[in-house]
């Protein structure tokens, strides 16, 4: 990704204009770093990242549409990320997802320079962040994931946890069924199971995670196994141990 000239490409992501202009001004003192674009929200950031392939994202955390952590989950792991925020409570989560640095607003040009030096050091080494860590980072500590932000092909889909009917796991990706459609994402069922609210989502089968509020009834299905019939008539296989877990959550 490094250009032969040694030029580094930066994308500025912040919903506040003064904050973007400040970063652009600070960066003029570092001619090797060129600003290739500015994004006003998370979705724009993901789009511009795909188009422009920057080396570094200077990324705000709290933004309209999707936040900084959710952006991080949607971009290539080779891209270095430096968070910029007025909130210090995200620092731990930021380093969990291997952000290169964490700048607390307001910061000086020198502090930004230090962050760029760190980026230089780390550039090219991909963030080896696994999905569960990302999922954990995208939610407040002690809280369950309230929504999934996933890339489905060229589209970015925001799925509130409550609107998920069930999830089917296949090798290293999962298919999320929600509101009469389905979206594919590169995660594993285990990771989703660990991040979603266990009182709402039950692993009813090796390959299925089910939203218990969708279940209409449980019916026998073949030798020793059962199936859950959803309120809209669709069915989800339920294994023997899955049935026990389901009954434990439903309290029947």
């Amino acid at each position, binding site marked *: 990704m490094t250009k032969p000239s040694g030029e580094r490409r930066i994308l500025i992501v912040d*919903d*506040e*204009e*003064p*904050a973007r*202009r*400040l970063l652009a*001004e600070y960066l003029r003192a570092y001619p090797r770093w060129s600003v290739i674009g500015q994004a*006003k*929200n998370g979705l724009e950031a993901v789009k511009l990242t795909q188009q422009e392939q920057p080396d570094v994202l200077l990324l705000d955390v*709290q*933004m*309209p*549409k*999707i*936040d900084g952590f959710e952006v991080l989950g949607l971009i290539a792991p080779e891209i270095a990320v430096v968070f910029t925020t*007025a*909130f210090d409570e995200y620092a731990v989560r930021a380093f969990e997802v291997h952000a290169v640095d964490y700048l*607390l*607003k*307001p910061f000086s040009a020198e502090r930004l320079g230090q962050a760029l030096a760190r980026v230089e050091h780390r550039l090219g080494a991909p963030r080896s962040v696994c999905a569960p860590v990302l999922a954990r980072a995208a*939610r*407040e500590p002690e*809280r369950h994931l*309230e*929504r999934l932000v996933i890339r489905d092909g060229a589209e970015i889909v*925001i799925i509130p946890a409550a609107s998920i009917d069930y999830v089917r796991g296949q090798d290293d990706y999962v298919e999320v069924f929600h509101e009469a459609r389905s979206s594919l994402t590169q995660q594993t069922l285990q990771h989703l199971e660990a991040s979603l609210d266990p009182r709402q989502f039950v692993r009813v089968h090796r390959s299925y995670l089910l939203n218990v509020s969708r279940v209409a009834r449980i019916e026998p299905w073949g030798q020793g196994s059962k199936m859950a019939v959803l309120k809209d008539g669709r069915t989800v296989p339920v294994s023997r141990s899955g049935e026990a877990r389901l009954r434990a959550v439903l309290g029947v």
Partner: protein
Amino acid sequence: MSPPIAPRRARPAWLDPAFLLAYLLFWAGLSVVPWVLIDSATPVAAFALTLMSTVGFAFVTLPTWYLCRALPLRPGRASRVVSIHGAAAAVWSVALVGAMKLLAEAGGLFAGWHRLPLEVDRTQSALFGVGALFYFLVATFQYVLAELQLRHEALEREAALAVLAQRAELQALRAQVHPHFLFNSLNTVSALIGYDPVKAREACVLLAEYLRGTLRAQDQALVSLRDEWALCERYLKVEALRLGDRLRVDVELDESAADCLVPSLLLQPLVENAMTHAITPVDEPEPLRIRAKRRGARLALELENGIDPAPRPRDGGLGLANVRARLFAQYGKDASLRIESDVERFAVLLDLPVSAPNTEAAP
């Protein structure tokens, strides 16, 4: 400010009018005793004797009050309490018999009840016993009253402490300026210095005025709605520097409403709440609408904003709870905070009694 809470001073229970009435009735009932004991006493004479004793007795029981106060009932001190009260009862009864003798002599001399002194002499040991019995009755009564008074005071103190704690809590709620607001504002100023120094200076002034206003508001229970709005306006202007045209504010403040007094920092938490939930996290937010109208003796305030289309979990509701608690502390059930919300808008409606500045001036 509300009046300070002062504990009531302790005083002898017999100064209580209800107690005095009960005391007199008790003695009137006791007129039966001399009437039965003293052969020559007519009911009228017996009642007169008793009534005279009553007034004397009222003063005579006073020592028991002080003695009971000085000798509180404590475990392990029973023998001391009993012996002291025993001695006091003997002295007291002798004094009582003596007093009755004097009264009987007086009765014999002036009213012609010649047999009275003799009757008192004949029954003096019985009178002594009755006197001692009364002493212990009165002492017991004093102890029970003292105990009840202590319990009552403890309850009062507890209530007073609860009020103080609530007041301190409200003060703390009133005082909070969110650090994130400061950090973001400083970042904006830092940015503006680079490309618009005039605006940067303006931002510094606005920020200082806002901070000074919140500090001043901590010392004032009530401010005019005009002043409260001026504070919110500064806050919103600082936020507008950061958010640009994403922040649109639409205000309708009636002249008659602007003069009304409201609890200080009543509006500001609501404005901040709207910023956090409906303006900052939204790309193209709906304008923030604020209306204030006076209808007779009532003041109606309304804040309306749009809804975040992608709501995220947030520590919310603190601003609303804060305002609700402060309204209740100030007006009790005479003020209300109501929320109207649907998929497109969120509105907070306040309804409170008008306090005009001339009738209820803020200290």
